[in-house]
């Protein structure tokens, strides 16, 4: 079983432009940023959320708090993961009560990660609203989850994988479509 790269979907420049556009879209569609907060899902949602917050500061001097969420404890598939998932801490240094939250992740696929994220967030309090921002929506939803802010929508098959590489984690910057071949 090998991983074969099929296509480069986004270059570093394209990722940056998309992040800027998403930041603008979120500010535009939030009717006021007073209660707005971003929650990055570990791992790659975290740098994305930071970058979006930074871009927002450049827009109107808007300063939006950013939290990070590790969803490992809320997954519905723990017993099926062969490798032992390593737990990281979540850090949300503000109350989620009455907040207008935007959850940020790199890829939206089955929707189970987002369900787990919402479980985690609702354990902390009662947000006023939760919306989802993703870099890539690859379809194949298994739960009724939708993203409000989408970088790019990509049609994929089950054997394909979207690999997002970000400088902060991978020391390179691009989005690829890869395939598992036996």
């Amino acid at each position, binding site marked *: 079983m090998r991983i074969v790269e099929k296509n480069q979907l986004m270059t570093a420049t394209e990722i940056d432009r998309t992040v800027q556009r998403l930041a603008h879209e979120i500010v535009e569609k939030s009717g006021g940023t007073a209660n707005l907060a971003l929650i990055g899902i570990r791992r790659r949602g975290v740098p994305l959320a930071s970058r979006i917050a930074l871009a927002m500061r450049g827009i109107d001097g808007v300063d939006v708090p950013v939290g990070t969420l590790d969803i490992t*404890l*809320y997954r519905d598939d723990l017993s*099926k993961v062969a*490798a032992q998932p*390593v737990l990281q*801490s979540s850090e949300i240094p503000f109350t989620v009560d009455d907040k207008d939250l935007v959850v940020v992740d*790199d890829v939206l696929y089955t929707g189970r990660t987002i369900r787990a994220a919402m479980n985690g967030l609702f354990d902390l309090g009662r947000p006023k609203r939760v919306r989802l921002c993703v870099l890539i929506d690859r379809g194949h939803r298994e739960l009724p989850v939708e993203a409000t802010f989408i970088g790019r929508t990509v049609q994929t098959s*089950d054997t394909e994988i979207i690999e997002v590489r970000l400088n902060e984690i991978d020391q390179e910057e691009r989005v690829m479509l890869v395939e598992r071949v036996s």
Partner: protein
Amino acid sequence: MSFRFGHMLGIEPLSAEEIAFLLDQSKPFQEIQRHPLKKLATLRGKTVALAFFEPSTRTRISFATAASRLGADQMNLQAESSSLKKGESLLDTVRTLDAMKPDCIVMRHSSSGAPDFVARNLDLPVINAGDGSHEHPTQALLDALTIRDRRGTLEGLNITILGDILHSRVARSNIHLLAKFGCRFTLCGPAMWLPRELECLGPAGTSIRRVTRIAEALEDADVVLTLRVQQERLHEPALAIDEYILQYQLTPERLRRARPDALVLHPGPMIRGLEIDPAVADGPQSCVLDQVTNGVAVRMALLFLMIGGGADGSSEKESSHAAD
């Protein structure tokens, strides 16, 4: 880097990396304890068997709380009200529990080696909650987490242990653990509780000295671990309680001989006015309540690591977070 633990029988066989990993993995669970809603569904559907053949309140409640907060169910065996009184053997008792299909067994027993015996005879993960005078691994882990949180490190600290070290599994597990991080040990108490063999604990080269004068023992200490005095043992051979208090009670004056930021730990339960002066127990250097809070976190981490994951082989779509 990630580690798997089939059993948790003792600290001695673990590496420093494995211990650091366990402490790191406890941090998210420390965080969860601060949430308004502390209940997770992570171990939903799993069952933790709590088999306490020796009386225990705090350890049992701590493990039970850890299991509950992870969403697991419990099977509860308590020695006083069990069929052991009717003469059932240990093996039969645990086999009976095993036949009810728990996912792991947490056991405390008065015989050193009992959890190891059970681990060899059952196909079930075993966590040692204290066996005889051998080990109490989760106590050492929560002590280490407490020390590391307050001091930032476990490396090269001066550890003074006070009290009945001869009979203490807590002392042994702590020595095994902290020795792996290059700590130096001073063991202090009446000579009858400080046999020479204690100097052989830990890996070769571990610095352990035995001292009968508390003032000397506390000099330069970074951590003072105060053990409970079991009053029954004061009679083997005889040492009057007043004499013990006079010579070995940890008082504020004596504590001043240690480093100014020295930590005071106690596995509990404390007997105020016996091994520890109330002013020290309640003072700023005392970590006893943190120890208890950290105990739940450490036990949650251990249960999560031991029975949380698992290879099942499934054709479900691999989450993009599976390998993160």
